[in-house]
């Protein structure tokens, strides 16, 4: 367990869902810094389509919880301009698929401004968005796109797998002077966990968490697959296989050290992430491990992810392509 994880455990906690944890992070940061405000489609009175911002409009009013027109390119650009000029917008992009509409402002403005201007622009903007299949929401509302953002120089990306990290990462993102995307998997909003109540609790960007210790195989899992991998690890323990489960939490920057250290111990690695398999997040993690721990590997590294398809609507098709705990188990069984 990392020192950070230990520090987290020491603080007082409260049990809440991932949704409540994100909301609490937003509330605390709105209270702490009046330059912080939220904007997005129906985040106000409506409370957000996935109800994350529910209640904040009543608490903070229409100036600080701002409903936008349906103009992702416009408000993503406005957030970029606002961040460069002294305020700290927190944008909700309802579904990450809609990044398609706003990508120009993200990749050519938000990501590049500080660098192109020789450091003469701050970019304290946070973009919260939802990812993932499992709701029957079909191909344009189920994407897992975090690889694009993590790949693009100038953007940071985090992806919580537990309620505690949902809160800690969201707060760290808002306090950061860099553009940070927070990728919330919509299937874990109801997942509960112990969350530190200390208002100064944040999770520094670039720190992984060892969620379960084990000697036999390392499972690096993200988002929904963290919980599913932990369950799989528990059931495998009965067969004598002890899996170590690591949630990287932050995709860029990525805590290579924690992962490599674990692989040195176990000699085996499974990477489980819902993004499509080709050219992705899996590949990046695997590349870093082989660069630093190639000779510690005892077995081929395994990937668990979405085959290179979009998310189909029909439930049996969606279940077919969605990676889950059983896929993690099969991957482990292949190498142990």
């Amino acid at each position, binding site marked *: 367990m990392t020192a950070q994880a230990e520090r987290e455990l020491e603080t007082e906690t409260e049990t809440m869902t991932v949704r409540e944890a994100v909301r609490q992070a937003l509330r605390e940061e709105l209270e702490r810094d009046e330059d912080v405000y939220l904007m997005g*489609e129906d985040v106000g*009175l409506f409370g957000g389509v996935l109800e994350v911002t529910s209640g904040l409009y009543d608490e903070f009013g229409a100036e600080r919880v701002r409903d936008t027109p349906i103009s992702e390119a416009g408000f993503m650009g406005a957030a970029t301009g606002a961040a460069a000029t002294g305020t700290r917008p927190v944008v909700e992009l309802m579904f990450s698929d809609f990044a398609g509409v706003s990508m120009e402002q993200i990749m050519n403005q938000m990501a590049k401004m500080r660098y192109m201007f020789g450091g003469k622009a701050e970019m304290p903007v946070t973009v919260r968005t939802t990812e993932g299949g499992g709701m029957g929401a079909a*191909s*344009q509302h189920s994407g897992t796109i975090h690889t694009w953002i993590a790949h693009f120089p100038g953007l940071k990306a985090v992806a919580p797998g537990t309620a505690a990290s949902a809160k800690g990462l969201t707060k760290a993102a808002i306090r950061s002077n860099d553009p940070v995307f927070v990728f919330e998997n919509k299937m874990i909003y109801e997942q509960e966990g112990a969350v530190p109540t200390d208002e100064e609790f944040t999770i520094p960007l670039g720190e992984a968490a060892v969620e379960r210790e084990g000697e036999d195989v390392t499972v690096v899992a993200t988002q929904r697959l963290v919980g599913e991998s932990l369950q799989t690890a528990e059931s495998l323990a009965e067969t004598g296989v002890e899996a170590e489960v690591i949630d990287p939490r932050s995709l860029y920057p990525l805590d290579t050290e924690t992962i490599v250290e674990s692989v040195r111990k176990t000699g085996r690695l499974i990477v489980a992430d819902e993004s499509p*398999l080709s050219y992705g997040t899996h590949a990046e993690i695997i590349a870093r491990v082989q660069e630093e721990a190639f000779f510690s590997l005892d077995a081929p590294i395994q990937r*668990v*992810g979405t085959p*290179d398809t979009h998310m*189909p*609507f029909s439930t049996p098709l969606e279940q077919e392509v969605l990676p889950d705990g059983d896929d993690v188990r099969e991957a482990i069984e292949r190498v142990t």
Partner: protein
Amino acid sequence: MLTIRAFDTEAGDRFADGEIPGFVHLYIGEEAVGVGTCAALEDDDYIASTHRGHGHCIAKGLDPKYMMAELYGRAEGYCNGKGGSMHIADVDAGMLGANGIVGAGPPMATGAALSIDYQDRDQVAVGFLGDGAVAQGQVHEAINLAATWDLPAIFVVENNHYGEGTPVEKQHNVDNLSDTAQAHDIPGLTVDGMDITAVAEAVGEARARARAGDGPTLVEAETYRYRGHYEGDEEPYRDDDEIERWQDRDAIDSFKRRLIDRGELTAEEFDDLEREVEAEIEAAVEFAQNADPPAPHEAYDDMFAETPPEIERFATAARTTTDGGERIEESRSSSEPRSDGGRSGGERR
């Protein structure tokens, strides 16, 4: 209009029963816009729809049976279960798809109009969009392109006064959304979207103009959705009075009265029609309920015209799994790529 209302009433009920997954956005209350528009079109004209697309599909002549099957995620649905409510399409029938991306229909209509113009075909293309979608940049780019190239396109704005929970006046600074046509120097008009003949006349004129080579028209139809934005919406943003005021001007009721007054329809004939439609929709539901779901390996069909090996190996594995469990056991001990229908990318040791 009756078919749409019956279809969407049933779709709402079946969604509430948990038989239909995902999101459904119902068109109840707005029927006159879709039907009025399509009544002014020829069969081979194109339409590009929105997330609220059931009405457009029916107005364009799609079969409720296969639509319902799609809502149920069945293999016999219009999209083989891949699309669902938000993506029903039948390109051969001129229906370029419902759309999950707000504002994505108009560029598609401009594109269809480009094909028409390029090959000198006697057709037009209609792009439907909501009031909320008028705030999207790509909508304006699409209109500008069609206007600049004098393409045979028609943009129909369905102003139902809300984009999800946000009223139209909180999303736009203009009084009439049709005012935005001025920016592109094309005709823009606002019509009563609860009056099917008003819509049909406006679109008919727009069609004639488009076919004459004079370019696109923007028609704003003022209408109202009776149900929530999607099923399950608690609607904190409006009150029952407002809904009732619009229901008093219901498009089906007023058209029915007009036809009866003119002696073109009797009350009995209307009742018969209603019964006929209800039976058709009931049959559609039954068809959908009894239809087969797609087999898991179909998840890998239709990503490309030619399936690449990256995907084919998953399809092969899924087919093997469907064939029966024994072969999976066998393959577990082999050194072939895994064939257990799972989703991981490694090689067996």
